[in-house]
């Protein structure tokens, strides 16, 4: 199957021409629902999860649900791989380990990602999420993705 048969890879090709990176997220239903989208930082791709009340996991503190932080770190890693590498398929996550460092307040969360090691089939990605102060991350993650299309596909 051609890479462009995938709506997400077709969208990516369009975005490479227009430069409007936020549009990458529009092809992913879950990213739209969660209001997670990439944006151009100064010289790097950042991913933002816009705060909305459905993200809350603890109404007493209040704090954002840990599962949503893991989810947005995973999306940040995927957007990074799509945008910054020449992957021809949607990266397929193999595993992810999320460390929760601080309670996340009910405001936007921003994340960056970097490739720690790129192999022919497997890539190791590190991602970091923060709110107001980048020096105080709320969560970090390490994840592995398969980036070759002929391997058995785990979920996205």
């Amino acid at each position, binding site marked *: 199957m051609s890479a462009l*048969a*995938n*709506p*997400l890879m077709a969208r990516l090709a369009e975005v490479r021409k227009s430069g409007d990176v936020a549009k990458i997220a529009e*092809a*992913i*239903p*879950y*990213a*739209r*629902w*969660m209001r997670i989208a990439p944006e151009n930082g100064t010289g790097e791709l950042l991913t933002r999860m816009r705060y909305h*009340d*459905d*993200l*809350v*996991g*603890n*109404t*007493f*503190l209040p704090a*954002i*649900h*840990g*599962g*949503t932080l*893991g*989810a*947005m770190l*995973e*999306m940040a890693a995927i957007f990074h791989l799509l945008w910054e590498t020449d992957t021809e398929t*949607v990266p397929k*996550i*193999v*595993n*992810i*380990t*999320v*460390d*929760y460092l601080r*309670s996340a307040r009910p405001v936007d969360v921003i994340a960056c990602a970097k490739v720690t090691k790129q192999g022919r089939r497997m890539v190791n990605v590190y991602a970091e999420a923060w709110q107001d102060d980048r020096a105080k991350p709320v969560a970090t993650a390490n994840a592995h993705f398969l980036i070759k299309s002929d391997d*058995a*596909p*785990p*979920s*996205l």
Partner: protein
Amino acid sequence: MTSPFSDRDQRIAFFQQWFSDTIPHSKALGLKIIAVRRGFGSMQLDWREELVGNPETGVLAGGPLTALMDSCCGMSVATMLTEPKPFATLDLRIDYVRPATPGKAVIAEAECYRVTHSVAFTRAFAHHGDPKDPIAAAAGTFMLGTKGEVTRPQSIGTEVKS
């Protein structure tokens, strides 16, 4: 007086209220508690289009599974606490061993197998009904005695006997 935990349906209804319906993100995902007892919790996540990660295949994104596993592991911790304590996820590892089947509900089963003074240890599997054919495996640790007030879900271990 009968405890709400002696009757299975009442117990599930109670945990449904405190571990899904009153937690905005769990409610938004529509998490259903399907079993709970001391040291164990099981939750169901129904497939829906909004949760899809790959628009070509209809396979769920990793995110909803992460939230399901985190919630389910957290619930298993709550059943083990012998005194009310606030707690929070310290780390969570998820192995996605095969894609979830589009259209099918995902069931998570979590076990809290060890509780120390400061940390609770959990593991979980997610599947479509056959635990021998997992979609994902998780290992989560939780920090006990974190800041903030004890919430109702974080103090019910004292009441779960079976």
